[in-house]
């Protein structure tokens, strides 16, 4: 078993676990944060498969931007609830 295989198994299992958590967690904010983590793991996977361009884009856009949009949506809702 090469290093690549080992890493890919770890990443693969982690991906699935985190995805499952993201889908099944009760609180929405947790779900969003797990999605962000999933995105970061995907970046790892991309780097692993020699795709630096995709990795950078996914890191900036996928896990950064999308998460912030999710968070803002939830924040605005919390604001609504406060009022």
């Amino acid at each position, binding site marked *: 078993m*090469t290093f*690549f*295989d080992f890493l*890919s*198994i770890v*990443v*693969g*299992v982690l*991906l*699935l676990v985190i*995805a*499952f958590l*993201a*889908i099944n967690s009760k609180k*929405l904010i947790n*779900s*969003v944060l797990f*999605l962000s983590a*999933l*995105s970061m793991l*995907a970046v790892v*996977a*991309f780097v*692993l*498969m*020699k*795709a*630096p*361009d*995709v990795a950078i*884009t*996914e890191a900036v*856009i*996928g896990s950064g*931007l*999308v998460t912030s*949009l*999710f968070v803002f*949506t*939830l924040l*605005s*809702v919390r604001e*609504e609830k406060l009022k």
Partner: protein
Amino acid sequence: MIQYASIFLFVLGLYGLFINKNVIKLIVSLNVMEIGLFIFIISIGYVGDNAIAPIISNTQDLGLIYVDPLPQALVLTAIVIGVGTTALALAIAKSIYNTYQTFDLDEMEESA
């Protein structure tokens, strides 16, 4: 291995869409599905452990083994498209919340 994981990530996204009734979680599931798809696309371009990223410094480097650059280009495009869809979906989710005061599709039907 990672390819299999990506396919299961994709179906996990479908699973999320299957069980969830919450608008936000549906969008999360959609994103999970898309991430799975992106990893799958990259994985079909993976040539082998000895291949390197498709960036050269001069034309002599072309003799080396590179991973397939085309899937990467596709994913690059697809990621941005996914962001566009997600942003739009979240905007709609917000306007849904403004109308119904809930994210839950089932509750909406009751109130509507």
